[in-house]
Each structure stands twice: as C-alpha cells, then as structure tokens.
C-alpha cells in the first residue's frame, strides 16, 4: 500500500461537487460530522451557488440503532424547503458499514414526495481508486430516475466527466451546429436539460470517466455508445469530430474540421517547434482522469510524458492504447509510496499533481501544476492556448531565483 494518495478528493466529495452544480438536484450527504465538514469545505470552491451541504450528521447512537429515521426526516425537510426535482442521497462509508437501508427509506417516501424523485449512490471506500469515479456513479444514479424521451434519429449525445464539463461543450458543439447535427449534452446545468440525453441516437463520451453513465443511458434509451477518444489536443479533437462525421456520413462536419485544421495547423506547428527546442519531461500523477487529456496535449506537442493512470475502465484502456501507440506515453502502473519516489526515478521538468504532491515537488525547484486548475481541456482553442503559453507558465526563472537564494544563504528547501 502506498503511504500517500495524490488525488484531489474522495468519490463522495466529487459526487457532491458535481451534483451541487445542477439546478433542480439536491444531494443529501448521509454521513457523520467529520465527513460532512470536510466535504463542505472541500466543495466550497467549486460550487457556484447553494453553498450549504444538506447532511444527516450521523451520531453515535445512530451507528448502533440505525440512522434511517434521521435520513427520512432530512429528505422530507429538503423536499419541503427547496422543492427540488431530484434528491440524491450520497450514501457514504459509515452508513454503508452499518448497513443502512437507504433504498427502503426512499421506497417509504415515494408517496409523500410528490413531483420529486429520490435516488442514491454508494460512494466512499467502495471507490478508493479514482475521485473521477464519484462523477460516474452520481451521474449513473441520476440516469436511474430519468424518464426516457423519444429518440431523435441522427442525433449525438456528448457525455462529459464532471459538472465543470457542462460549460466546456461549446468547443465541440460549435462544429456540430455548423454541420446541422442535432446534439444533447450531459451533464448540463439544469436537470431538465440533462434528461434530454435520452433522446440521443449515438452517445459520444468526451472523457474516459462516464463509462457506467453511458451504459445506463444506453440501457434506458437504446442509444449506441461510441467511445472514440478524448477530444483534447489538435489530433484528438479532429479524430473525435471525424468519428462523428463518419458515423453520420456528414460531409459538412468533415468540411468544418478541414477548415479549422487549415487555420490552426500553422500555429500549432510553431508551438511544436518551441517544444522541440526546449524538450520537456512531464509527469502526471493523480487528477480527475485529466492525466489522460492533459498528457495527450503535451505528448502531441512533443513532450516526453510519464503518466500515473487513475482510471482503469474500458474507456481508459482504449485511451491508454491511443496515448501509448500514437504518442509513446509511458504509463506508470507500479505502486509508489510517495511522489518523491517517482521524482527520483523519472526526473521530470514539470509535474501535474495535487496540493499534497506540490509540497514534494516545489523543494526540487520544479513547477507543479495543480490538476484541478486545468479542466475544460477540450477542443482546438484550449490546446493551442495551453501549448503557446506553457513554457512561460512554468515560470522557471522564479524557481531558479529561489534555488539561488536558498543556496546562497544555505537554506534547506525541505525545511
């Protein structure tokens, strides 16, 4: 077992953060105080509104005698106070451990909560590997209670990773619109919008995360799931869009991609030249599966990429093949105790990690990019902008300055 973990948060927190961004949905955290406190604090930064966490605050007595009554009361409270369309109970480690009958509670309340659907998902230690799984399982729980809409033939459903993706689809939908291809996006910032995903004819996940979600939607609506690849970087975006164009036989979409490529390639090639002049070794550790997408952009630009994968579902396996074969990305599957061990082995020039990794990277005077700051990584524009500014964003001179200061005054960078 490793001694640390370099992910951004647990699956419960991620589920809370994602559901907290959807209007019409209220998550209830079925958990004791420490869990609720940490999740409340941790999700504060990413929730745009409704900043208070609804929770059950499981107490000592409830661990012995059961907390179902308390949960029931909180569901009713939330229903009467906010009138949401959907309530999702996040069933965390402690209630799972004591065997809470969450399903039974929801069943009991069916009659009382008119116009509101209640669902739940088990989070926490059942999903210890990837925080991103928190997205997938909470989306899947939403899909469970969705009413299927009539399918629109020839339409595309774009499936994103987290609530943040709800605002990042435009880098792809612009092309679909131009090619007159009807589309639906999931997640969206309102539950009514999200429900429309069941109208999609073909589902195109834009990240490796929503494996379970796509499966559930497909079961519900008979939509066909086509995992192409993550549309990040120029080549990835092109291949993703052309895959849709081929599926629908849309010459218009091919034309739009041709035009965009013609426009962007000279700029992209000049960025590649910069990368070839200043070769980089990049290590991606942790991340909400962004190691796949961000690593892809940097690898396409010519960086030598080392990647610790956080997800292992079938989509992730497919993406892994793309990254390894097309860009010769090195995957690190061996267990490691601390990030320092990897730094000693791979000597990266720059590391993508989380705050608990940053404290190990900075004393080595190497830039650490925080994974959570680099989401919405889809499409041509993101890739070009990111590539153009990457060397500058590393702020190497700042690290050199501190290195010089510590050396001069005999300071200990780890002190």
């Amino acid at each position, binding site marked *: 077992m490793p001694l640390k973990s370099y992910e951004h*948060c647990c699956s419960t927190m991620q589920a809370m953060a994602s559901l907290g961004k959807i209007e019409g949905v209220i998550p209830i955290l079925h958990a004791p105080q420490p869990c609720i*406190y940490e999740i409340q604090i941790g999700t504060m930064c990413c929730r745009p509104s409704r900043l208070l966490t609804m929770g059950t605050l499981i107490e000592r007595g409830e661990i012995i005698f059961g907390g179902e009554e308390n949960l029931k009361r909180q569901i009713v409270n939330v229903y009467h106070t906010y009138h949401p369309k959907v309530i999702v109970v996040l069933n965390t480690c402690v209630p799972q451990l004591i065997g809470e009958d969450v399903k039974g509670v929801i069943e009991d309340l069916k009659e009382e909560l008119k116009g509101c659907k209640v669902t739940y998902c088990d989070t926490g230690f059942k999903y210890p590997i990837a925080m991103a799984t928190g997205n997938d399982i909470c989306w899947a729980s939403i899909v469970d209670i969705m009413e299927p809409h009539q399918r629109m033939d020839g339409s595309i459903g774009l499936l994103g990773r987290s609530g943040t993706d709800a605002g990042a689809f435009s880098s792809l939908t612009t092309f679909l619109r131009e090619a007159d291809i009807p589309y639906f996006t999931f997640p969206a910032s309102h539950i009514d919008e999200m429900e429309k995903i069941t109208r999609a004819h073909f589902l195109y996940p834009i990240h490796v995360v929503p494996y379970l979600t796509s499966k559930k939607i497909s079961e519900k609506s008979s939509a066909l799931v086509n995992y192409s690849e993550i549309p990040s970087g120029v080549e990835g975006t092109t291949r993703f869009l052309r895959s849709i164009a081929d599926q629908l036989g849309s010459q218009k979409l091919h034309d739009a991609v041709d035009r965009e490529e013609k426009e962007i390639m000279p700029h992209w090639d000049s960025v590649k030249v910069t990368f070839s002049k200043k070769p980089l070794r990049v290590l991606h550790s942790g991340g909400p599966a962004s190691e796949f997408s961000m690593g892809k952009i940097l690898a396409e630009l010519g960086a030598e990429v080392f990647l610790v994968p956080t997800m292992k579902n079938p989509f992730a396996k497919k993406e892994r093949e793309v990254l390894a074969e097309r860009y010769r990305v090195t995957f690190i599957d061996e267990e490691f105790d601390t990030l320092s061990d990897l730094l000693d082995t791979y000597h990266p020039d720059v590391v993508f990690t989380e705050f608990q990794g940053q404290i190990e990277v900075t004393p080595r005077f190497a830039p650490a990019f925080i994974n959570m700051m680099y989401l919405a990584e889809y499409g041509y524009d993101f890739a070009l902008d990111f590539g153009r500014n990457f060397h500058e964003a590393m702020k190497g001179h700042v690290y050199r300055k501190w290195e010089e200061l510590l050396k001069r005054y005999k300071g200990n960078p780890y002190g």
Partner: protein
Amino acid sequence: MSIGSGKNFSRDIKGTPMAKVKEGTDREKRLQVSEIHRPSAFEGALWAVMGIKDAHTVFHSPSGCYINQHQNALMNDLFEMYTSHLSYGDVLHGARETLEKTLQKLIAKGPPAIFIVTSPTVEIVKDDVEGVVEKLDYEKCVVIRPTIGGTVHQGKEEGFLSLISLMDEKVEKKEKSVNLIGPTYSVFNWRADLEELRRMLFEIGVSVNAVITADSTMQQIISAPAAMLNICVYPFDCGVTFAQKMQEKFGIPYLADAIPIGFGESARWVEEIASFFNLDVETYLKGEIENGFRLIRTGSVFTVTFETPVALALENHNTYAVGISHFFKKELGIEICFAAVGDEEVGTKVQEVSGNVSVSPTIDEKKRQYEETSPLLIMGNFYDLKVSKDLGFLNFLFADIPTISFLATENGPYMGFRGASYLIQQVVNQVYINLFIETKGEMEGQISLGEVRWSSSAENALRKIAEMIPHFIRTKSVKKLQKKAEELAYQEKSEVTLEIFKTIAEEYTPTRFKTKFLEVFEEDSAEPTYQEKTEEDWSKLPFSMEWDEEAREMLHMVPSEFKAKAVLGTEEYAQRHNYTCVTSQVVNEYRKELGF
C-alpha cells in the same frame, strides 16, 4: 491568583443568567446546516499532532478521508501526512495487516515518533490498532482514537494527552521557561498570536520551552517537563485538561485564567507570569500601555469605534469570542450587537459585554441577526463573509475557521499588545475607509446641478436617514445622497420625490443602514410630516425656561435621541449662570463648556 491552583477561566464565570443566551434550534426540527462549519474530534486530533514537524502522522482511514483531511488542512499550513489506505474489505475483515505494512514503511524512515489517528470507520469496527503497535514493538508510536460525535476541542485534548507518555520526566528544569499549550495547525491566526506571545515573554526575560504543538519538534515535546510553568493560550477551547495532567504527573503549575487580548488583559497576562517568576515588569508594561494609548489618541480611533457596532461569529474560537468581545466593549467602546459562540459557558462570559448572544445558531439565524442588528463590521468565518457580502455588508474581518485558502503569516496577531493594535488598525481602516469611499461620486463627476426642489416627504426621509448614520460619516453621506437624488430628479425633470429618494437611498446609503432605512419608507403615508413630527416631538421636550427662536433653531441640529438631554443640560447651565432665557449665546457658551 490562579497560577498553580488549576483554576480555569471558564469554571469561574460570574456572568448574567444563562436564560438570556439563545440556543440554536433543535437538531430534529431543522435542516442540519448549522454544524457544517464545526470540525469534529477527528480534525481536532489530526491538527493536534500534524504540527509536530519531525513526527509522522498516519490517518488510519480509507484514502478518501485521508485526501480530504490532507488537502483541506494544507490550505492553512505546510505539513506531511500518511495513510493506511483502508479498503472496503479491510474495514470489514480487519485492517491489521494493512496498518502493519504502513507502519513498517514509516518506521524504516526513522522518525522520532509516529502518531496514528483512527478514522470514523475504524472506530465503528473497533479495529485492534493497539495490537498492531504492540506487535511492532515500536515504543514511539502513539494511537489516538477520537470519539464519533466529539468536538474539535475534545479531539485536540486527546491529541495533547497522547503526548504525555512520550515526555521525559527526568529532564533538567529550565529556569524562567514556559510551555505554550493550545496552538495547533488549522487554528485561525495561531502563528501570528504565537509570535507575539513569544515576543512579550522575551521582553520580560521568559523563554518558551515548548509549544504544544504547532511547529514544534519531538525533542521539544519530550523535554516539555523542563518548563517551570504551563500557559494555556486558548483556555476556553482546549489544553486545560492536558495542563492539569502535566501538573499531576510533572508538578508543573499552569495559567489558564488570562486571555491576552486587548491592552488590559495582555498586561494582566504578563503580570501573572511575572508574579510567578518574581519579575519586575513595570517599565515594560508602562511602555506597552503608553504605545497603546498613543494609538487610540491618534486619528479617528474612538471617533469610529464609539459608533461601530460589531457582530462576532466565533463558534470555533471560544477564546477569541471572550477576549475580543471584552476588549472591544471595555477598551474601545465598541458595541457587540450580536455574538455567536460555540458553547453555553462561553456564551455566559460574552454576555457580560453583549445583550445578544447565540450558541451555535444556524446560518439562517445568523443572517437574521445581521439584518436586525445591522453591524458595521462582521468578524467570523468564510460563511459569515459570504452571508455578509450577500446581504450587502461591506466590512468583514476573518477571525475564525473555516477560511478556505486564507493565508495567515506571523504578521497580524489578534493576541498581545501588537494584536490589540492590529485589531484597532483593521477595524478602523475597514470601517472608515469603506464608508468614506461609499460616499464618493465619480472621479470627474459634476459637483452641482444648481437648485433642485425637494418634496417635503423626501426631505423628511433624508433627515431621518441622516440620523441613522454615524457622525464621523454623516455629513459626507448625506451630501452624497442629496447629490445623487438631485441628479436623478434632474434626469426625470422632476423635483426630488419620495420615490426618487428611496431609489437613491437603496443604492447609495452606507451598507449597514440599508435595512434600517427601509423603515423610513415603509411608514404610513398618514404619518405626520417632518415639520409636524418635529413639532410633536418638540412638545415632549422638558422645556422649563423660555428659548428664543435662534436657540430653538440650534436645537434642531441635535440628534433627536439627545434633544431632551440637551434641553436639560442647557437650562441647568442657564440657571447656574443666572440667565432667565435661553438664547443662542447661552447655547454657545454651554457647548464651549462641553468642549465642542
């Protein structure tokens, strides 16, 4: 004198009856949203030991719990922490093997101590953690098992108590040295407070032997019994039980009844320590108090503080709640219009200086209090900041956790003499500058539009609102309201109507009064006009002498709440000087006597 007596401030409260302290509503009857800003015993235990820089802390937990705890606490302090990565299977079938492997790896690193803090899941299954430690036969390994449902302060106390077994009771005593008990990582402003207390102790010739625990080393912890005296820095929060145990085991007396917040209490804190060590601190304290007095004599300190109601929301920081409330009220004349505290004992203590204290109110209750009491400044945590911004309050100071990514350095203490000065600096600058800037127009705006007529109802409302604004900002605020109302009337080719003035007042009245002035516009239209009201009020004034017209005019300038007092005082002056009638000359003489 409480040194050595084991007396705790919170056990010696002579406050007003508890009945006046309002409690939060029943858990069962409301949404559970009030506790979200209250960390638990698990946070407390972790924060207590993670600040020992060279020791290793293991959170015996699923990786998710570890990540959340580590990430959130890294927002406040720099430290390292490890985990046993419990899986679902581990928890169900026993995690002995997993923990053993984790500990073996850490022992190999050769740390001076390892602290194992168990997580809620481990506490539910009651995993045999001690058995694993015993098997490894590593004597510098300590297990802390926080209680589910315990408070953050209880968790800290557990953490502190676990240190006693590691201490060396045979260590040589250090003359004139103390241990500072209480500062831990993730406590608001601990670093700055500690720095200031160290400075004060250094000034009187006392050294700090160990800090329990923030930024300490294991050697300092082991040698803690070398100190002559233990000082509980946050006696209303944690550390007192630990100090009592140290007294029992090592015979070290402790001080827990002085909170060095404010000039007076900081001086008392120093005096108590000096008295224990038999030190002469008169010259030192003279200098500090003179410095403080020099500050409050300058500029706008009392001008602002005397008219600045403050709301304190310090539910995770009981010691600050008591210390700051007493300092503000007694030494700065600040009215504590509302205080939210963490427990009833503290509530009683704060109630000595505030008539409006709530114990663990919900966020909605706090919101209501802010609206009703209209503080000019709110001090609290991140949620209070959010609520205050949502409600339109301009002035806010962080004074409690959670803060969410708030950087706190050794600068800016709230404790000690420099803490008192810093608090004054912060309060006065926030309030004065923010209100001052709110009264300003555009950089290159028009100064006047010429004469614009006012309806009597609008004029009446302007005067009423003016009376609600503190004197240090009243003239400028009223001028701005007037100007803005006239600009709007000019645009609409109208006189300034009540409606126009209401629009302007909503937009430009200094924040605190936005709720209060609404009453002015909500009054029944059948209400008497300002002139009528004034005359009506006039009849209620305690005139016993004749006042000439000019003197009565001057009385108009006095705020209505002080008019009666002004009449009585002026007439008393007139009689004392054998005047038969109150004229403007008499009023002026009396004003002069009062120092105006």
